[in-house]
């Protein structure tokens, strides 16, 4: 946190990177960002060596305090030259070419989001936020900036607590936590652990979640034991700062799934069909977003930015940029529901993953695999990799992949086929591969071992 604010006050923008990210991915991010300085909390020999070769300054956090003097004049000078359209921070998100994309957020988009969010939810100075998601994940920006914006307290939950649910509740109560802004994965984890039946977080006021679709039965587990709390489903792609839609769960009965809900002030969400007509009852369309929370697009990738940040298809009268999300929604009884992705992107453990990225990563690391197809088993929350080629042990593939991919992208199960389904042009047929997997799963073939 001190680092983030340090970078901001220096007039630069920061890129948070998880300390556990594989070195290769880290190198890609650093090269792509063109970073001048890396500050590491723990200090790592490999990073130091790498920085030497690239002429990047590597600083360990503990060194920063030594002999520090604050130059008020310089600070004022930076402050006076700041523009709200300049970037504040950048987060990386999964990309289909096998390389992650950097999404740039401006000061303006953050400030606008904070203002609107506070207008809707009236958080208080006495509130205590408990941070769950790691800082390289955009959900954490709400913890970082929102808590500061309302002068509330922010506590960081030790990772260990998420392995031992009992300790998590003890932690929340010890710090009198009132606000949770968590990933759906964490909400689900607590629900399925069964801890709420035994121990309760006593001070909670509002629970926000986002990242993927939370199932009603998972939410019911919370509501059953913790009644008088606001539960809020938040929606937005990484390309939008914060969130653009919210749904406050006020009544459970009759609700089969969580709708996307209302749009934050100063934002507009349009769901358009292929002919750019707005969807009517029971129709599916793609979500387009316009308004002050939009990010500045992808770093060093104007081409892709132009593809997703487009002129409002409803008029050509003046420049009016909207973000084309690739997310599909259906309108039922006036409410919008998230349906899925236009492409093959999935949400897993709260992270957005392009399945192709996993395949590309494996191809770059071994020539033994001729072809592979990553699919997502929604029912089991598992990534499955189907492979064709010279057999490699599970253990080996796992270790190959973990050199280049973050943990949440590593497939859970590996299935070898003699041949993966192809379409007429000899391209991998994802749909058929998925069908074949489901057939194998349902026939019980997969658990023979």
């Amino acid at each position: 946190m001190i680092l983030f604010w340090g970078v901001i006050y220096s007039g630069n923008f920061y890129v948070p990177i998880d300390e556990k990210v594989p070195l290769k991915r880290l190198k890609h991010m650093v090269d792509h960002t063109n970073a001048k300085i890396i500050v590491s909390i723990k200090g790592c020999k490999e990073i130091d060596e790498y920085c030497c070769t690239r002429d990047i300054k590597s600083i360990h956090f503990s060194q920063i305090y030594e002999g520090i003097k604050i130059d008020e004049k310089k600070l004022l000078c930076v402050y006076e030259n700041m523009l709200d359209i300049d970037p504040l921070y950048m987060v990386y998100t999964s990309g289909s070419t096998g390389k992650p994309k950097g999404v740039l957020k401006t000061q303006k988009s953050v400030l606008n989001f904070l203002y609107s969010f506070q207008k809707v939810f009236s958080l208080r100075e006495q509130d205590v936020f408990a941070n769950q998601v790691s800082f390289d994940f955009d959900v954490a920006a709400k913890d970082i900036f929102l808590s500061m914006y309302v002068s509330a307290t922010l506590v960081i939950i030790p990772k260990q607590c998420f392995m031992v649910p009992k300790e998590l509740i003890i932690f929340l109560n010890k710090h009198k936590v009132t606000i949770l802004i968590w990933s759906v994965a964490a909400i689900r984890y607590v629900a399925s652990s069964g801890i709420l039946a035994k121990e309760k977080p006593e001070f909670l006021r509002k629970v926000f979640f986002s990242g993927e679709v939370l199932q009603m039965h998972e939410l019911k587990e919370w509501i059953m034991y913790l009644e008088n709390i606001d539960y809020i489903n938040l929606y937005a792609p990484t390309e939008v700062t914060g969130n653009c839609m919210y749904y406050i769960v006020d009544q459970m009965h009759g609700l089969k799934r969580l709708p996307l809900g209302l749009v934050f002030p100063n934002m507009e969400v349009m769901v358009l069909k292929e002919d750019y007509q707005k969807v009517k009852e029971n129709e599916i369309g793609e979500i387009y977003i316009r308004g002050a929370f939009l990010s500045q697009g992808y770093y060093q990738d104007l081409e892709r930015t132009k593809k997703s940040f487009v002129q409002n298809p409803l008029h050509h009268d003046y420049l009016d940029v909207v973000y084309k999300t690739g997310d599909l929604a259906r309108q039922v009884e006036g409410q919008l529901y998230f349906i899925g992705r236009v492409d093959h992107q999935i949400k897993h453990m709260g992270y957005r993953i392009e399945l192709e990225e996993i395949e590309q990563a494996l191809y770059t690391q071994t020539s033994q695999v001729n072809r592979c197809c990553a699919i997502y088993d929604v029912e089991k929350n598992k990534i499955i990799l189907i492979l064709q080629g010279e057999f490699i042990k599970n253990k080996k593939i796992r270790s190959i992949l973990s050199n280049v991919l973050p943990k949440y992208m590593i497939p859970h199960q590996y299935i070898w086929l003699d041949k993966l389904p192809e379409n007429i042009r000899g391209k991998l047929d994802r749909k058929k591969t998925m069908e074949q997997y489901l057939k194998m799963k349902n026939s019980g073939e997969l658990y023979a071992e």
Partner: protein
Amino acid sequence: MQNKVLKILKDIRPDIDFENETGLITNGILDSFDMISILAMITEQFMIEMDVEDIIVENFDSLDQICFIIEKKKNIIR
């Protein structure tokens, strides 16, 4: 049984020396992703149920402790 448990653990984290490591949780060697995978695998393969009261540091800090809690759970089912 120890071998079967070891195989499960090694499949999830091949880089860890489970036979000699005694601070899997306290030393931050495993993370929550691992823990979820481990719980899913052992409950599935040994056909046991893990109660939230069982998921405490003292039951998952070493290979021996994990084997012990599985054994205990299996006996309850019988």
